[in-house]
């Protein structure tokens, strides 16, 4: 067993775990269950998190590899009382069907928009290319990212 200590959405967590535990399983074991398991091989993208500013798939990151890092999950964006523009845009555009792939897709979009606040459709598609969704056909999600980007730019200008 190896001790892993990391920060999730600003809160510190520490726990002993087996050396081969993935970050995904570790996060779920400490109660962070917005991070979903869909394949365990880095192929579906339901487990995406932002680790030290980098969007990655937590099922192919070792928990111990994340030792000392700052992890952001979808809870860092907002909640039902105070949602992020990405969250409201996804809901309002009809981009959320079953919702299983959504938390990580929102993080992928957030990570892209932080670097590129005015993406074109091609860039949006590219940023979400590792997040498989079987419900929506992606049309509404691409539209939702466009809409959220606009709202985020406007909010920034207002400040």
């Amino acid at each position, binding site marked *: 067993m190896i001790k892993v200590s990391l920060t999730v959405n600003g809160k510190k967590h520490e726990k002993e775990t087996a050396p081969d535990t993935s970050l995904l399983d570790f996060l779920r074991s400490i109660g962070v*269950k917005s991070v979903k398991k869909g394949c365990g091989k880095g192929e579906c993208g339901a487990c995406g998190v932002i680790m030290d500013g980098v969007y990655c798939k937590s099922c192919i990151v070792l928990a111990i590899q994340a030792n000392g890092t700052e992890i952001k999950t979808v809870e860092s964006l907002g909640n039902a009382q105070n949602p992020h523009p990405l969250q409201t845009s996804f*809901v309002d555009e009809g981009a959320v069907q079953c919702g*299983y792939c959504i938390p990580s897709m929102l993080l992928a979009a957030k990570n892209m928009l932080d670097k590129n606040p005015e993406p074109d459709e091609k860039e949006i598609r590219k940023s979400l290319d590792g997040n498989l969704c079987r419900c929506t*056909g992606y*049309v509404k*999600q691409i539209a939702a990212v466009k809409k959220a980007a606009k709202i985020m730019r406007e909010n920034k200008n207002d400040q």
Partner: protein
Amino acid sequence: MTNNINNYKTVGKNVRKVDGIGLASGGHLFVADLADEDSLVAGILTSPHAHARIKKIDISKAKKLDGVHSVLYHGNVNRVPHTTAGQGYPEPSPYDTVMFDNKVRYVGDRVAAVAAETPAILKKALDLIDVEYEVLKPVFDPEEALAPGAPIIHDEEDAKVIIPVEYDKTRNLAAHVDTKVGDTEKAFEQADLVVEDRYTTHYANHCAIEPHISHAKLDPHGRLVITTSTQVPFHVRRIVSQVCEIPIKQIRVIKPRIGGGFGGKQEILLEDVCAMLALRTEKPVLLEYTRKDEFISSRTRHPAICDTKLGFDASGKLSAISLKVILNTGAYGSHALTVGSNSGSKVLPMYPCNDIDFTLDSPYTNLPVGGAYRGYGATQAVFGLECLMDEAAEKLGLSPIEIREKNHIRSGGTSPIFKALGEGTEGVEMKIGSCGLDRCIKMGAEEIKWEEKQNKQASKPWCKHGLGMAILMQGSSIPHVDMGAATLKLNDDGSFNLLMGATDLGTGSDTVLSQIAAEELGVAVEQIIPLSSDTDVTPFDVGAYASSTTYLSGMAVKKTAALAKYQVLEAAAEMLDCKLEELDIKNSVITGGPSELTLEDVGRHTLYADNQHQIIASASHVTEKSPPPFAAHFVEVEVDTQTGKVDLLSYVAAVDCGTAIHPKLAEGQTEGALVNGISFALTEEYIFNDKGKMLNPDFGNYKICSTQDIPKIKTILVPTFEDTGPYGAKSVSEISINGALPAISNAIYNATGVRIKEGPFTPEKILKALNSQANNK
């Protein structure tokens, strides 16, 4: 009933999806999130052989392992033949499955199950189960399986059917249907043009991003509580009761949020084993499939061989259809008869004529098991039909649009097939109510610029440009079979709890059904608190399948809301001392009386003041017919003639789903279905080795579309009004998965002159066809 959608307050509006924000903010809403922390983890040992008898099985080493709480296998569970298909009772699928058998029938078949304290112990325990197999000769080809001398897959005595349908396990025949209307032989003889060909479709997986998962435990009273990712909670309760031999009253099934189903979760795959492990260990148990299990051991789309023959007169009027379907059901007969029957009933009526032949043979093979999959047989059969329509059009000198306009069914029309072909029984005679096919074709053609792009050049010299189309129909519920029910109760703040058996599996039906309740009640949708599928709490519903939720369960909700409204007005009339008939509810206010009352006034009054009672109503609905939604799909492609790769440039789906209760969700159903259809047509496939083992059971090698693979997509909702549906609605969820196969095949032909008759249209297959075309010239 008004059919002016503009008069509706909530129906037809894009209200906020009721579970949207909770899901988008990472709420702990799925089975894995809700499982008890101290749950045992369970896993299933599966067969490495396609066909084998278990000669010996030794579980002693696994059982002795520290941390192992239970090992199940055929020697320690009772043999209860059943079907895993979650269908209405008595099920039309054969009872050919037991929890564990002494025989395995495909690579991935169940052998044993273990519940252990940790995943590491579980893995070790599964490895410690010693199984000695007597390997039997397998049969993989569906036609060979039906031939004399083929290995018999279900040689057990107790496999049977429980309704009077043809079933002959001694010939590997899981289902057979033979339906004749008129005299096709004569009609083909008299036809001016006959086109016929064999079109085949392939295995596919549902690929819900949440794999199958179940959690079971005994509550403090000793009742079994199953929280499971299912489309059919009430069928789960019934089948677990049957297989685990405990009374229904001892079981509670809870459906939380579901991570996609698409038919794959209309199957009782894990619940019986999970329940049995919980009963044996008296501990909470969590059993989930890995992605690999999903591909290998769950359910698939039945592959089909469809021999289709069409007769036309010289003007291009269709006079006769013959459709012979061989539906490979794999190792078990789950949905074999019904998927096969729907290949006829959801396809043939699209072109009414008097002489129709339909036959279905569904053989067992030693390959993965077929099951319900969005499109449900129509996907398989419409491929050949719509490609042959194009072939006939070319021979008749008609355009693809003209031949369809000449022949497609219209409002007021019917087909003898509706009555002749049901699901194991006769069907139900039906006159088409709403049909927007003509407008679907016109609007779709316009959107894709069908005429303008006819001779468009490709973007590169080695590519060819093409256009293709297909028209489609599906159904809405299974008439006289499916039942849905709902309950509404008024709270003291004027809100309503809407309790539904209908199962939202991500489709948005909680939202759509709340809209229907709100519209009928005259309240805002925010006043409705939906709860779907908890067998202890909500009334019955057969579940989310057969495109039934909006049309069938929606009508149950509408009826319920009308009854609840009556009770509200009754109480209000008493409170206002006026006649009930004078009153109405508008925007949560009771109007028309001597003074106005809010629903809150009525709620509080009836619960706390005079004549105290709970305003609560329930209603059930059974459908008389299954009105088809219709669609026209158009696709624009470029075919790379050097590599054989098909690039989709744009895709247009014009859909008549009656009234779209929630347009954005209806579009979402269409887009999700058509993108699934696209990757089914182009890249999704099961690659087997010669021993029947799937070689690509992961998303790395089983390719579904990502954001980078989809073309420009346009959905057009073409409004019609279906009198028998809630606010004019029909179904929308399945139909659009069916278009890609024929439309893309037609577009490839239009681009290259090569007809691809076998799915998927892989680059290798297309290049081969192009090369042999070049060699033949």
